Every structure is written in C-alpha cells, then in structure tokens.
C-alpha cells in the first residue's frame, strides 16, 4: 500500500537507491555515526552541550515506531487544517520515538567550512519512575517496523539500551505525586497505625509468626539494654535468624536489618512493632538502587522516634526525587536545544516537532493554535528545509525534476558530500563545504557506513539547509559567529514556516499561528487540487460493502438533481465523502436520511437512497462529525468501526442537522480560503479532469468518481449565473 507513507516511502525508495550506488564508491571515508545509548549518554551529553553552544544551527531528525494508527488517519486532500492537526496529534500521541538524530553545525571561518557533529540517540520510553497512573504503552505500525528492519535498525539496542525520558509534564506530575505521598505519610502516621491494627491476626500461622517475632524483638531490645549496662552479648540460636536479622546502625541508632521476609510477614512485623514496642520503630528506607531496606530501629524517647520517622521520610523523599531527576534522561537534550535558542532545522518536520512536544514537553493541546504558540516559546526559530526547497525559484528549478524528499534533495544539492550523486556528474559553482567530526575523526566526504539512521538523516538535513542558504544568497564567509542565523534577512521570511500538510500545501506559521500562502503562486499543488468546500461535505459510512462510489453518486443525484454532487471520495472501503454543490444539500440529505430510516413504508423501500441505506448501518454526518471522530483517541482500522466506537450518538445528532451545521461553522478557527462560495465553476471542471487523471495514483484500491462531465459543468455554469 504505497499511498500510506508519502514521506517515509519516498525516503525509503531513494534510500534504497543511494545505498546501492554508494556501495560502489571507495572514495568516502567511512567511520561510524556517533551512537548514543544508556551507557554513554552522560558523556555524550556533556560533549553535545559544547557543540550545541558553539553551533550556528542544529539539524534534527526522528525515527518513529509508526505514522498512522489507522488507514483513514493518513493525510488526505479532504483534510481541513484543523483535521490535519488532529491527525498529527493522534500520531504523535500514539507512536514512540525510537531514534533521535541531533547534528549541530558550526561555521569554521578559518577553514571556510561547516563542521557537523552527527549524533544518533537510541530512545525508548522505559518506565523508570514508578508513579501510579497508566502504564507506558505505545503503538507499533507493522509497516514502519518492516521499514526500519529493512535498514537494519537495531531493535535490541533500542529496547535494551535506549535512553528513556520524562517530559516536563511527567516530571511535574511525578514530583506532585511524590509530595502528596510525602504529606500523606507525614499526616497519616498515626492513622496508618490504626489502620494496621485493623487487620486482625486470625490465621494460626500468622499468630505463631507474630508471637515468634515478638519474642525475637524483645530479646534483641533487652539485649541492647543489657549490653549498655555491661551485660552479655545476645546469642541468636540459629543460622537462619542471623541471616534474617542483622544488627546494624541506622542514623547512629541501633537497628535490625530485616531480610528475606514476604510482604505479608513484613506487614505482620509492622503490626507487632506498633502494638507491643513503644521504643522500637519499623522503617522502610528506599535505597539509591531499586531495592529498599526494612529496618527496626531502637529509639530512646517518643520525641526521638518522631524525629527518626521524619528523617526517614525526608531521606526517602530525597531518594525518590533523585530518581525522578535521573529519569529525565533524553529530555536533557531537548532542554539544551530549547535553552540555547539555536536555529532548529528539520525536513518536513511538523510531525517531528509534534513528537518532540508530546514526548518532552507535555500533552499536545487540542487545537493547533495553542500548540503552535507553545512550540514557539520553546523553539523560537525552526526552519523546514522542505519549505526552503519549494520557496526559491533557483532551488525550485534545480529540484524540478526530482522530488523534495530528503535523500534526493541531498543527492542533488550536496553532490560533494553525497556519494550517490557523483555519477550524475552534476556540479554546482556554489558549494559550501561540510566537514564531519565524530569524536576524533574528521572527514569532508563522510560516509557513515550506518546510513539511514536518524543521526545520518539529521546530517543530510543540515547539509541541504547549508546549500539552500547559499542559493538564497547567504554568504557564510561574511557571517559572523555572534549573529543568529535565524535573523538573517534572506532567511527570516522562511523561519517558522512548516508544512502542516504536504499534500495540500498547507503551511502554518509557528510564530503567528496563521496559515500562510506559499511564497510562489506557482505552486504545483494549488493547481493539482481544487478548492474543497468543507461545508458542502457529507460523510457517509457503514453502507453495504458492495456499493460502489458511482452508485452512491447516482442514487444521490436522483434525489438532489444531476449536478448536486461535485465529487465522491473514498475515505476507506467503509466510508465516503460526498461533496455537494450547495451547502444546503448537506442538511437536506441528513434530514432525508433520517426520515427514510424512520418510516418503513413502500416509499422508503422504493426511494433512490434505499440502496445506500440498506442494512440499517448506514450513518452520515457533516464535516464536523468527521473532525470529532478524528479527535477521538480510539483507532479502529476501518472508519465505520471507528465511528461506531466513538459513539452511536451521531445517528441522533443528524436529526437537527441545520442547527448543528450553523453552530459548528463558527467553531472552525481558521480562516478557510477553501470555505469560499465564490469558487468559479471553471475550477470545478478542472477538478474533474485532474481527479480523473490522478485517480489511480491517489487512491490505490479505491475509486474516485467524479460526476462532472462536460454537460454537467455547463449546467453548473448556468446555475451559478
């Protein structure tokens, strides 16, 4: 299913190409990428701090465990920007980041070259801190694993050695839970004791155990007291006891270290101590490692006992806090990038940024506006190389015949680095040199030998950025190290512009949250796709599986007129979008459907829509319904099942569609150019042609059926006139 992964797949294909050609080359220097796992994270981080501080920009790239949680969650041209954001949000929330490439680039004015330090971090969301709440869970997309496997991704390294992390949100939450627990424990000390007393010892084994333990403790305590009075040493009578009770000193007080008891026995011990010994206290000390110590400590007075308990609790809290600190892990890298305020460079990186946000900052906001303004706070300057490649005339010409996928752009723009492009014989006058440094090794035509990993992709992204900058007229020789690249006048108009959807050519400005028109009106995509009128769209799902799109169109046209349906688009095999020529038709259709379902007289059986409604599982809603279904955390493979899982209430909502449509129209927060009634009919006719031509390419197994033949176009014209 090629259409699933427009980005990854094209990358995969070109990767495959470049890998086959590069193997023939012997010129490149081969030394491995800097791989970072749990083991060398501390040292790598310290080094990275230096490199980032000195860098002019930092390129990043992520490898994820998947992209879409269901086929219908892929990017479609029928996605409004808010829906597109919801899809990205769903992806970032469900899938894990398994590799994170970070590559700082520094301009070396003495060598007139950039120095790149590619780092490849293995990341794995291991649950290091035991806070209650749901267990960590993430989704794998089978095709994505196969993709990673094809490029020899090391899953063992990722799962066993991957660096875990806590987002800022998780850290805060962990600390909050910790302090609540701490306060609870402090205030509930007496309460707890009472609680312990509540448990009756009624099993014979428990009674015997409690009695034995009681004797043991009193012996020990008496021994201590005698010892102080110059009495004899206490003798344990069995080896077993020696192992289970070990006399130690705890905070300068005599104590017994208890080992190899079951949790039930510990509970009984605690009970016995609280009940029978005023001068002994039972404490649990959490060590730095995972194990905790169980102790019975002797205290001389009640005050001392209270003091001891407080000390123990503070100690436990400190240890727990340290654990939380240690669990931050990979987020240190993100914090570093954020605090240095460096220019971040990615390739088609909206999804990457969403992942960074949800993994390392906090839960993704429900609306794109909020997300964008929040991202801007953490990363004020982000450049998307895909934007650059499509924004400049010169670059566009260079790239014309090839795709703007990462590796093909790399091969085209950086032939001196990319080995795969050598054979094409393309040379450019302006080539910025890039030298790679991994630990102590340096090279100016570097071939990692471990290609197609996040670290290498980040490196490629950075190289493309450097060349693209030079095409934009930025001369790095004149560039002073103190100046922030992001403020460069030639670059700044592209900064913070990201493709929200590559398919639609939707660009979002991170600093303002607005949608941006592409800089060059000549965008390929504007022509390719017609304006979609979201308010004219009705979504139908759950219809009998044998029904073809053409039949749906026909039956609707029989009711609403020949020109009523502009286009039909299959979301998946269980759902279609039907775009009407007028927004009123949406509510009319929903009302009619409802009426037909209610009556079971001959009219409903003979009605043209009867075929569509056959089986009684056919549901319909407007575009807002679609948005709501997209926003659900559930992901069923088929859309009809998804809609059912989200709630059957949609069926009922359709009773008052007019109100719903009106009300919901105002809630859409973006100014939609698309929601524009003055669309010219000529554009619509173009849509028909384009759709037919692109039919196979876009839809894989499904069909787009366009009812617009020439005669109908004429009719629309006359209608509109």
């Amino acid at each position, binding site marked *: 299913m090629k259409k699933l992964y427009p980005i990854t797949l094209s990358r995969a294909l070109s990767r495959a190409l470049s890998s086959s050609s590069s193997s023939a080359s012997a010129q490149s220097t081969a030394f491995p990428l800097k791989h970072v796992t749990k083991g060398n994270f501390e040292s790598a981080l310290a080094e990275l701090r230096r490199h980032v501080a000195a860098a002019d920009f930092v390129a990043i790239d992520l490898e994820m465990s998947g992209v879409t949680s269901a086929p219908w969650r892929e990017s479609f041209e029928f996605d409004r920007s808010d829906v597109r954001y919801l899809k990205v949000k769903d992806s970032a929330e469900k899938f894990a980041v398994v590799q994170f490439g970070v590559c700082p680039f520094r301009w070396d004015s003495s060598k007139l070259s950039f120095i790149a330090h590619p780092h490849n971090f293995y990341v794995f969301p291991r649950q290091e801190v035991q806070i209650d709440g749901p267990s960590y869970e993430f989704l794998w997309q089978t095709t994505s694993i196969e993709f990673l496997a094809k490029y020899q991704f090391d899953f063992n390294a990722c799962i066993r050695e991957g660096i875990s992390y806590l987002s800022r949100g998780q850290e805060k939450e962990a600390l909050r839970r910790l302090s609540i627990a701490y306060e609870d424990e402090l205030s*509930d000390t007496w309460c707890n004791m009472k609680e312990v007393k509540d448990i009756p010892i009624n099993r014979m084994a428990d009674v015997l155990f409690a009695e034995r333990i009681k004797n043991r403790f009193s012996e020990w305590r008496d021994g201590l007291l005698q010892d102080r009075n110059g009495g004899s040493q206490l003798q344990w009578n069995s080896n077993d006891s020696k192992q289970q009770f070990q006399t130690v000193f705890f905070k300068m007080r005599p104590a017994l270290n208890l080992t190899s008891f079951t949790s039930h026995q510990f509970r009984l011990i605690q009970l016995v101590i609280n009940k029978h010994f005023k001068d002994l206290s039972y404490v649990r000390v959490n060590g730095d490692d995972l194990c905790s110590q169980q102790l019975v400590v002797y205290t001389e007075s009640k005050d001392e006992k209270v003091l001891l308990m407080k000390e123990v609790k503070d100690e436990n809290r400190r240890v727990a806090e340290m654990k939380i600190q240690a669990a931050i892990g990979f987020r240190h890298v993100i914090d570093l990038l954020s605090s240095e305020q460096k220019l971040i460079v990615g390739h088609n990186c909206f999804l990457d940024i969403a992942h960074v946000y949800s993994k390392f900052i906090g839960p993704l906001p429900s609306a794109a506006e909020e997300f964008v303004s929040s991202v801007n706070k953490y990363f004020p300057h982000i450049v998307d190389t895909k934007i650059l490649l499509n924004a400049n005339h010169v670059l566009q010409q260079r790239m014309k015949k090839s795709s703007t996928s990462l590796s093909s752009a790399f091969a085209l723009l950086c032939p001196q680095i990319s080995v795969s492009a050598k054979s094409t014989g393309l040379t450019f006058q302006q080539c910025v040199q890039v030298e790679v440094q991994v630990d102590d090794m340096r090279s100016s035509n570097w071939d990692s030998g471990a290609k197609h990993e996040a670290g290498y992709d980040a490196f490629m992204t950075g190289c493309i950025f450097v060349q693209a900058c030079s095409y934009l007229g930025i001369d790095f020789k004149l560039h002073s190290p103190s100046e922030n690249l992001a403020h460069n006048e030639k670059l700044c108009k592209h900064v913070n512009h990201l493709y929200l959807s590559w398919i639609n050519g939707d660009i979002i400005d991170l600093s303002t949250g607005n949608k941006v028109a592409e800089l060059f009106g000549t965008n390929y995509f504007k022509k390719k796709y017609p304006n979609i009128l979201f308010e004219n769209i009705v979504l139908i799902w759950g219809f009998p599986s044998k029904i073809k799109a053409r039949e749906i169109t026909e039956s609707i046209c029989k009711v609403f007129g020949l020109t009523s349906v502009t286009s039909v688009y299959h979301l998946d095999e269980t759902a279609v979008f039907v775009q009407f020529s007028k927004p009123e038709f949406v509510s009319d259709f929903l009302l009619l459907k409802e009426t037909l379902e209610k009556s079971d007289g001959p009219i409903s059986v003979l009605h043209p829509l009867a075929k569509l409604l056959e089986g009684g599982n056919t549901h319909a809603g407007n575009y807002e319904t679609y948005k709501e279904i997209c926003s659900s955390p559930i992901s069923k493979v088929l859309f009809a099942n998804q809609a059912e899982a989200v*709630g059957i209430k949609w069926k009922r909502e359709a009773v008052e569609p007019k109100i719903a449509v009106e009300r919901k129209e105002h809630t859409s927060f973006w100014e939609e150019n698309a929601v524009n009634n003055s669309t010219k009919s000529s554009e619509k006719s173009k849509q028909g042609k384009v759709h037919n031509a692109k039919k196979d390419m876009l839809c894989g197994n499904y069909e787009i059926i366009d009812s617009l033949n020439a005669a109908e176009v004429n009719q629309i014209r006359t209608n509109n006139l």
Partner: protein
Amino acid sequence: MAPLPHLLQRRFLCQKTHTTNKWKTVKQVTKSNFADTLSDLKIHIAESDFIAVSLQRTGAVSAPWHRVLPFDTPDTAYSKSRHAADRFQLLQFAVCPFSITSASKLRAHPYNFHLFPRDELKIGMPSYSFSCQTSYLTTMAKEGFDFNACIYDGISYLSRAQESAARVRIGNPTAIPHVVKSSSKPSVADAVFIERIKSRVKYWRNACKDTSSKTDEALVRSLRKIVLGSEEHGSRPCINIDVCSERQVQLVLEMLEEFSDELVPLIIPGKGGAAQEVRVILTSSKEDKVLFQKELQNIEEEQNKKVRGFREVIDLISASQKPVVSHNSLNDFTFIHSKFLAPLPPNFDEFMCTLRLVFPHVLDIQQLMKEIGPLRKVTNIPTAISYLKDHFFAPIDMEILHEDTVNEGKIHGHNVLSISHLFAKLCSILKIAPIQSDNKNLVPALEKYANILTPCSLSPQESTDEDIRVWTNNTRKVNCEHLVFLWGFKRGMTAGMLKSLLQGSHDVFSKEFDVRLVDKSCAIVVFWKPGLSETFMDLISSKEICGSLGEMVSEGLRAARYGTYKKVCRLGILEADLARSLDKALEEPDCLWQGDSETNPLEVYWYSDSIINFDDL
C-alpha cells in the same frame, strides 16, 4: 520406535541434566525452520494426549483494575480480555504436545514459535498496528529476548477470517477441480455466447498449433498475438475470456470440457471476489496437462503456506481435537481467537460458541488448582509450582523428546513445559488418570474442569455441582444487585476508613455491609441485606440527602450500580482510574444494550478475608 536401550539412555541423560539443561530442550522455531518443524509437530500432536500452550504478549493490562477481578462476571471478564487481545500482539507462541503415560511420567515435545505479524502479502494484514507496553518489552529484553530476530525471522500468519478476505484481495487465478453440469437449459443468449467463445477459442488454438507461423518474423508474430488476443501463462499460450456473471463462467467451463482436453481453465477473480475472466491455457499434450495441473497445485500449496503461516499450527491443534491445556485460558484464548480465527464477538457466549467449535476441550490449570488450594494464592505459574511443592509430594518424571536436544543461545517458551508439568502433577494429586481412551472425549474426571475460562466466576457446570466449591470458606457468593461502586471520596482513603465513615453516615449502613477498594479511585460496597443497595442508590440521587453522607456527596461522592460497571467493560471505556471510566459511562447515553443483560442478574464471589490484593492477582 526407538530401540529400548537407546530410549533408556536418553532418559538417563535427561535426568542427569535435569536441573540445568531441562529448559534448553524447547525447540525454537522461526521462519527458517518452520516448514520442517511443522511435519514433526504434526506427528507429535498425533501421538500425544494433551497439548499445552503458552503465549508471550506485548502487553496485558494498562491499569490494575483492567485485570479480571473476583467480582467480574464472565461477560465483564471477557470484555476486559477482549480489550487486551484486540490491542496487543503475540510475539511467541509455545506449543507442547504431551502425554502422561503413567501416574508420574510425562512425555513432552515442547516447541516455541517466534511470531511477527509481517505483512507478507502486502495487503495490510494480519495487523495494521499493535500496542506494546514498555514494561513488557523491558522484561522480555531482560530475559534476553532477541527483538531483531523476532522482527526479521518471526513467522507471520493470517487468521481464518483474514485468509478468506485475502484470497479475494490477492485475486490469484484459481483452478477448477471439475465442472458440474448445470441443470438449466441454455437460453438463446447463452447459446450465442457459447458459440462466439467457442469459435474464438478454436481459432486461437489452431493458430497456436499452426507450426508454419513459427517461422514468421517477430513483428508478424506480435501482430498475430494482438489479433488473436493470445497471451502467455508461464511458458504456455493462453487466452483470456471476459465473463460478466457466474452463469457465463459455468457456460465457458462446460464448453471447454467438451471442446478439448488440452485446455486448462483458470478463473481470474475481479475486485469484488467474483470471477472477472476465465483464462484458458493450452497444454501441448496429456502429460503436459498433468504436469501443468501439478504445477498449479504446488503454487496453491505454496500460497497457502505463505498465507496461513503460523496458523497452520493452530489448525493442526484444532484438527486433532485434543484437549488444550493452558494457564489463564481466558486471556490465551481471546488472543488465539482474535489473531488466528476471527475478530472477537461482542459477548462471551458467542465467543464460547465459536471457540468450542475449534477447540472442543480447553482445560485451565487454575480450575484444577482451585480443587486443592485457595485460588488467590496461586495465580501465576511459579507460585503454583512452589505451592504444590510445599504442600504435596507428587514427583513427576519429565521426559523431553527432541532430536536436537540442545539449543544455542537463549531459550524461551519454557512456561509451556511448566504448564504440562503442573498439569501432570495436579492430575496425580487429584488422582485423575488422564490417559485418553479415545481421542474425541475427555476422561470423565477431567470433564468437569473443561471449558471453564473465567477463573473467578460461576459457570454453569459449577453452579449445578456443589461439591467442587471447596474454597467457599473465604468467599461468599453475592448477587450483582447488591453491589454498588463508590468513587469521588478523599484521596488516599483506605477501605477501613471509608467503611467507618459510611457506617455513621446513614441508616442504610446500619446493617451488615462491606467495603473494598478496587483501585485508589474507586471502592465497591456490598450490602448483605437485600434491597439496601436500591435504598442507597435512591438515597444518593435524591435531593433530601443530608447528614455526613450528604456532606460526602457534596464533596463529590458518586455511586453507580453494577450495570454501569458492565457498561464500562462492554464499551471498553478502560481508563487508568475506574472512577473516570464510571464517570464516562454515566455520561454515555443508555442504548439498546441495557435490556438483555440486566434481566439475568449474575452472582459473583466476594472474598471476605481481606482486601482485593492486586499483587496476588
């Protein structure tokens, strides 16, 4: 049969290596040795009386209360298991055909299959995506599980339902075994159709056979091909005949049968699964025809292997109709059903129906354990083993028969050996002679344990047979009607505190009642006196509520009947906190579902000795 001395020697070796190498004898199966292993397994299954299974999943429950709890009815327990089976994936599937030859002798053939839901046919199956719990993956990593090997060499599969969908989707040509003559008389249109096709085929065949054309130039040859519509199927010439209906397919096949015996028809399915065209292949002779048909058969078998993959093992087990032994069978069989049979049905009864058709006898170790000890203590395999070791003397002589006994590297799937071992031990303790007299039926002594999948609740067999409930000492049966879920109380409250708070709050609590915490957010209250739960529910929703109970309600205390909990499970609203799930379920509009399940109130068990301890479950 192996000669006796040899057998003895092997047994001797087995015993010698008992402690160290015993688990090394689980045969590890991946893509590369799957085909070979399958034939061995087939023999071993035929020779054995029982088949033990054990599954390694990528996750189980996201929150403690998602486990099957003592107060779950079969339906709620099933819903919970179903929720997990739908989301998580199987990475290992251990199968162990075994026999208990005498009271203390166990012969086992353990296999561990490594699975990965690879999309072998590029049709988006068996699994678009699956969930993983990081804790599960971490534990597996600690045990030395090789994820790379699993992903690269794991065996893929398709469920039975997926296979039929895939056949349509792949659209491979299918051969027709033999044509059954249709009884209906051909109409005029049919006759015209037949004549047209007949002449076309005839012309084409003659042209193909015409040796004179072989000398033609390439251009002429290709022109001729276009005119005739002749194509090639492998090395043989063929012609495609478009058909519009099944009727036309039938007509074409009948015509071909009569026409010539050198022709082999294949049906090319269209998108919808219906035939789109008939491909007629010309074979050069009778021998060639046989050869070609054999080729087709091989291709089909190859295809089947590719399509079914690991499911062949499931089909083998099912076909043998032998009893399947498992620990925690509800979880295992919901996974088996969803991955290898079909998507899970919405309710427990349907699930049991389809499952019984495939696996007539399912035996759960936990059901046998119930006989001899309190269930709560022995819910996992190691504790069960140590419990038996501490309480009973029942030595089992385990004999593992594999040709290549020592594997290299890490060994997985030894749980399946523990299960067979436990089963043998339990049979010996319970004085059950598990020797199968015939394959179709279980020995009567085991019959009463069969097909009880939910560990905690009542099953039809149980409620009729009073004798086997030996563990009622610390459990009490309670009707779901008398249970009320409470949440929204102060955080950190214990069951005891809550009980004492409630006790003084209202008259309703003056009679005997009990409180247990389900999780930190939610408690379950049982009113032992009938009718009081209704009184309480009326009270809590009324406006006149006052006193300390009123205070608690104003602070956010909420309550719901057992029906709401059922709804939570049925709709799969499994949030981390039960309280949130119940809140959500109350927001959901009540729909059609309500009627049927409410009418037959079920009874669940109430453990009266202590709180529900999740560590033990």
